[in-house]
């Protein structure tokens, strides 16, 4: 019996995952424990190891395709086992749809489903795209630009390495012909094929975009370096890629606005000093200012549910629980582990859990459950020389609190000038969920609790 490679269930909340990048191709030899592919859950990219040694069979879930937890991604065939005609479990979104939607800028969730199976199909995406495609099928969407050549080029002499995307700009003949017909310059388009090859779909998608957003304007990153300029290209890690995509999507879709407030921190520091030995005794971990901030933010969120909400499909969803995400920078990139029910946990427990999450993040052992379910994010650059900063919302959350460093600042007290430690809080808000006043009320409460942490006891 061949061994199934399944979509692992990496946490209680995980229902499905996406195969991001297969590291091996069908027919490749696999050692047990070898990394087979990267999968992406709603929060994290995880490497999947081969459960057995053998030969990798056909990829049942290709790059970019989703599979339910437990779904078979591929099979590994041991000696004596014949590669059978594997079939794929029907996905809820047909494989064509996501790539096409992504390329065309169509929100898959906004696409109305026409098929009886309830699956979102390419045709649905195309219908959502509108009429500009001139009755021509866009054809199925391409997958990321690696190509399993069938047996024709399986021989060792066959070129397998596409090499660097150099200065040349590739296109298929069909794409060029179609671009000409549609009056587009294919050289200005982003190709989705191997080596960035512009294929017909890219042309049709470009043609289908509203003319007010000419595709040529929308891509400054493709401006090549001037001649003679030396550039070293670095591929992002899977985590970096996900972050990049999410941040770009967030910044492009959620209307951000920012509220700032300076708060005194002398009492907070004093409380921290007093509680430090107590927490250490109780939980065996060192209490940090972040722990205190988590506790304070959680309390404020419980009182101001609008800041613990999200925008979806024209409506506001309000979370019942308060799960505070803590932004942690690791070698692999930015991750946001989540401290659940932070409004109901004692400080010692928060400190213990925070400590464990950060440690896992630094050593790359975070599991998807650790990253799932955040309702608000706290990002603290207090340890760096940053006075204040504006964070990008962590979608679909509607608010994120950015905390700068605590430094001695002059303050006017009772008409006199005094010096005391203070820091600047900056709240980023999704205006679809929070308006200025509700944002200000929430930020005000946070400021109040930082300045007078004893309020937590009330």
């Amino acid at each position, binding site marked *: 019996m061949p061994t199934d490679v399944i979509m692992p269930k990496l946490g209680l909340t995980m229902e499905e995952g996406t*195969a991001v*990048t*297969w590291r091996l*191709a*069908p027919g490749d030899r696999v050692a047990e424990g070898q990394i087979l*592919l990267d999968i992406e859950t709603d929060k994290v990219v995880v490497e999947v190891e081969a459960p057995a040694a053998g030969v990798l*069979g*056909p*990829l049942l879930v*290709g*790059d970019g395709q989703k599979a339910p937890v437990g779904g078979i991604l591929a099979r590994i065939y041991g000696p*004596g086992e*014949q*590669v*059978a*005609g*594997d*079939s*794929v479990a*029907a996905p809820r979104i*047909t*494989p*064509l*749809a996501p790539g096409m939607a992504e390329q065309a800028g169509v929100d898959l969730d906004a696409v109305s489903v026409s098929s009886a199976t309830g699956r979102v*199909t*390419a045709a649905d995406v195309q219908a959502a795209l509108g009429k500009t495609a001139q009755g021509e*099928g866009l*054809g*199925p969407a*391409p*997958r*990321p*630009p*690696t*190509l*399993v*050549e*069938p*047996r*024709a080029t399986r*021989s060792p002499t066959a070129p*397998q390495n596409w090499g660097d995307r150099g200065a040349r700009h590739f296109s*298929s*003949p*069909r*794409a*060029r*012909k179609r671009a000409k017909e549609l009056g587009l310059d294919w050289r200005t388009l982003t190709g*989705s*094929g*191997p080596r960035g090859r512009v*294929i*017909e*779909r890219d042309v049709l998608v470009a043609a289908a975009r509203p003319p007010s957003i000419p595709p040529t304007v929308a891509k400054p990153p493709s401006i090549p370096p001037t001649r003679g300029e030396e550039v070293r290209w670095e591929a992002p890690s899977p985590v970096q890629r996900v972050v990049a995509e999410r941040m770009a999507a967030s910044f492009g879709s959620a209307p951000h606005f920012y509220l700032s407030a300076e708060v005194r921190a002398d009492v907070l520091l004093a409380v921290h000093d007093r509680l430090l030995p107590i927490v250490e005794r109780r939980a065996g971990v060192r209490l940090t200012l972040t722990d205190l901030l988590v506790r304070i933010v959680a309390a404020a969120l419980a009182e101001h549910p609008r800041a613990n909400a999200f925008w979806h499909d024209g409506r506001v969803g309000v979370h019942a629980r308060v799960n505070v995400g803590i932004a942690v920078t690791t070698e692999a990139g930015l991750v946001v582990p989540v401290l659940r029910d932070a409004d109901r946990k004692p400080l010692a427990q928060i400190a213990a859990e925070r400590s464990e999450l950060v440690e896992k993040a630094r050593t790359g052992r975070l599991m998807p459950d650790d990253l799932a379910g955040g309702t608000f994010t706290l990002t603290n650059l207090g340890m760096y020389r940053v006075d204040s900063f504006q964070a990008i919302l962590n979608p679909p959350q509607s608010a994120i609190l950015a905390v700068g460093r605590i430094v001695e600042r002059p303050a006017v007290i009772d008409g006199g000038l005094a010096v005391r430690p203070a820091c600047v809080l900056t709240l980023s808000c999704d205006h679809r969920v929070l308006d200025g006043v509700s944002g200000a009320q929430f930020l005000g409460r946070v400021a109040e609790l930082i300045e007078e942490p004893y309020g937590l006891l009330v």
Partner: protein
Amino acid sequence: MRELSYRDALNEALHEEMTRDPRVFVLGEDVGRYGGVLQVTRGLLDKFGEKRVRDTPISEAGIMGLAVGAAMTGMRPVAEIMYIDFSALAMDQIVNQAAKAHYMFGGKTRVPLVMRTQGGGGRGNAAQHSQSLEMWYVHVPGLIVVQPSTPYDAKGLLKSAIRDDNPVIFIEHKLLYNTAGPVPEGEYLIPIGVADVKRLGNHVTIVATSRMVLFALEAAETLAEQGIQAEVIDPRTLKPLDLATIVQSVEKTGRLVVVNEGALTGGFTAEVAARVQRAAFDWLDAPIMQVATEDVPLPYNGRLEFEAIPSVQDIVLAARGALYWNAG
């Protein structure tokens, strides 16, 4: 419509043509009393007698030579070469004599013969009984090469081959004889040189021959589950090739997978790819994919043979590759 096996469809074609035209006769090893190693000629001896249903010695060159001479002098022989592998023994008769006579003698000689034979692997017959040598004959001007994939096509094409005034290499597949399919009662012909679209689709064109047509149709089912609509074209006649039907499809889909059971190098897939890129370059949205047998003599062992011959999954992967769908 009634169902007939590929074998019975061929047998029926022979019965009908021999009844219709007294010039038609069959010859070959074990074709008479035994009814043919694959039983395609059974019942003919009793009906038409031993001169028209000639059991021959094991002499492939002699069989084909005799067929050439008889064809040049007014008969319409249908010679059976038990396995296409054995046709190598008769190569001079087929290539230097049958294929050349009409042109070489200024158009005054005709060689209306049919060489019926069977090719293909998949049954563990090993290196000398499993080859797909159709391209040897496709390469020779003057020959017509036919490879039916269904009982319906087999009957209609064999009748057309017998009536054709040229030497026709009619290649059956050893794993198709027991397949069944609809075959209408009564007379019908399938024209030589006309492809058949076995399945309609918009996303990718799959051109496949002989048993690979069945594989391609199965692959198309799998692809459909994944949201890919494949168009499957069976050329039926490899030479002359109905390029127009293929090009028309590629103009629609922009993507082409060519599947053939012959060895990859210098094979049918390369030939079709070369012609299509010339005829439809501006319509291609992806490189043309080739799915063919490994460049090895076919092994006896089942695992090895399965690995060597294209599988349904190979076709699925190639089609996905043509759509930029696979990871690597």
